[in-house]
């Protein structure tokens, strides 16, 4: 990316804009040509790149795990099965450690969350310009598009839609199991009768709105924090990769420094992407466990 044609601001903005397909304000559907276009579409738009890469990474995960699961034998495991079993044991141990009730959904859910988020995060380690440039080339060559209007954000977890979508799915599961296991009465009581309690009926009645406010906020905070933690970490990481990438166009000295910085940050980022996937998974398990247990 040369600084002659596109300024640093444009470069960053280009990298942070999703490939969006949606309904323009005038009613027709199409691809957004700029960030402003995408913004004008409002809710009726879809980030094609986020969907594409998340589905691709998800399919990679499913393909390998299905392959291993199909040929899984009780004998001596080899290669892929060994690797899959290692992850399986890791997830299984985590679930057993944090989840006390009996639910066949939780462990597969935890595995999906961990592996999928890890793979989506892993896209962050692909040098930031490779895939967007390739997409720009493809767009320009085959579809006659202006490469500056071809957007390709390859890390789905830097799109808040992806993280909020997953977090809300988990949240709905939490609500579902809360109602299922505690009943409407039990769940309502949990939201209104704690943490402040009193034997005096009048005082207790006064406590109910206060309790509800506190508990409701903490309930809503669960999916929000789950989504924003992952999004924030990945977005910040991506941002630093982009900033480092700008250095490559600033001469030999800065470019070399940028190379080392990128290497260092990528190595550090391996820790972050794994950690974020693990945190998302652990919190999912913990929230679901809370939905199953009586207070």
């Amino acid at each position: 990316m040369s600084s002659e044609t596109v300024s640093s601001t444009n470069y960053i903005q280009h990298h942070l804009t999703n490939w969006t397909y949606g309904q323009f304000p005038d009613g027709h559907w199409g691809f957004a040509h700029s960030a402003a276009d995408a913004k004008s579409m409002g809710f009726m738009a879809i980030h094609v790149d986020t969907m594409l890469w998340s589905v691709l990474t998800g399919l990679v995960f499913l393909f390998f795990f299905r392959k291993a699961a199909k040929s899984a034998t009780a004998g001596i495991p080899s290669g892929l099965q060994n690797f899959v079993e290692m992850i399986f044991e890791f997830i299984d141990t985590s679930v057993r450690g944090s989840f006390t009730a009996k639910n066949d959904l939780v462990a597969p859910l935890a595995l999906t969350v961990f592996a999928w988020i890890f793979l989506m995060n892993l896209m962050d380690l692909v040098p930031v310009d490779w895939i967007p440039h390739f997409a720009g080339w493809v767009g320009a060559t085959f579809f006659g598009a202006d490469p500056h209007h071809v957007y390709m954000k390859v890390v789905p977890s830097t799109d808040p839609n992806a993280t909020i979508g997953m977090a809300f799915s988990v949240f709905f599961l939490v609500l579902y199991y809360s109602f299922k296991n505690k009943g409407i009465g039990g769940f309502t009581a949990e939201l209104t009768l704690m943490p402040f309690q009193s034997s005096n009926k009048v005082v207790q009645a006064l406590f109910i709105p206060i309790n509800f406010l506190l508990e409701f906020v903490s309930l809503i905070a669960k999916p929000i924090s789950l989504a924003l933690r992952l999004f924030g970490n990945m977005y910040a990481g991506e941002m630093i990769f982009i900033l480092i990438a700008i250095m490559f166009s600033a001469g030999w000295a800065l470019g070399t420094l940028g190379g080392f910085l990128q290497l260092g940050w990528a190595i550090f980022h391996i820790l972050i992407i794994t950690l974020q996937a693990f945190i998302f998974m652990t919190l999912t398990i913990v929230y679901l466990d809370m939905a199953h247990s009586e207070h």
Partner: protein
Amino acid sequence: MNINLTLIGQSITFIFFVIFVMKYVWPPLVAALDERKKTIADGLAAAEKGKHDGELAQQRVHETLKEAKEKAQEIISQAEKRASEIIEESKDNARVEGERIIAAANAEIEQEVNRAREQLRGQVVTLAVNGAEKVLKREIDEKANEDLLKDLVAQL
């Protein structure tokens, strides 16, 4: 960074993935691992049993060996006892036989003596009769002295 339909699309994708994992990935892995656990447990149990069996066999071998030794000892002592008994018996037999032989010999000797005595007596009588015959041939009638001689013989 707009919130839009992607959110819903992502949720749907997520739900599909979870369902897929729940149906087609997790159960086979659980089954395989459980089976392996069972195989290992069975193997360990079999090994334990084998070890136990080995110990039992060893113990049996010891017992059998001990029994055999005792039996051999018994047989030997019995044989020795029998041998000494046989020796005693033979000794007794020999003594009895010897005594019998001695007694038979003694009886024969006595018989011989008696026979010799009878013979001697007969010869003495003949000799005496002959002598007396010679002495009395001229003086006494043979017929008259027959009675006398008979009396004499009876007295001998």
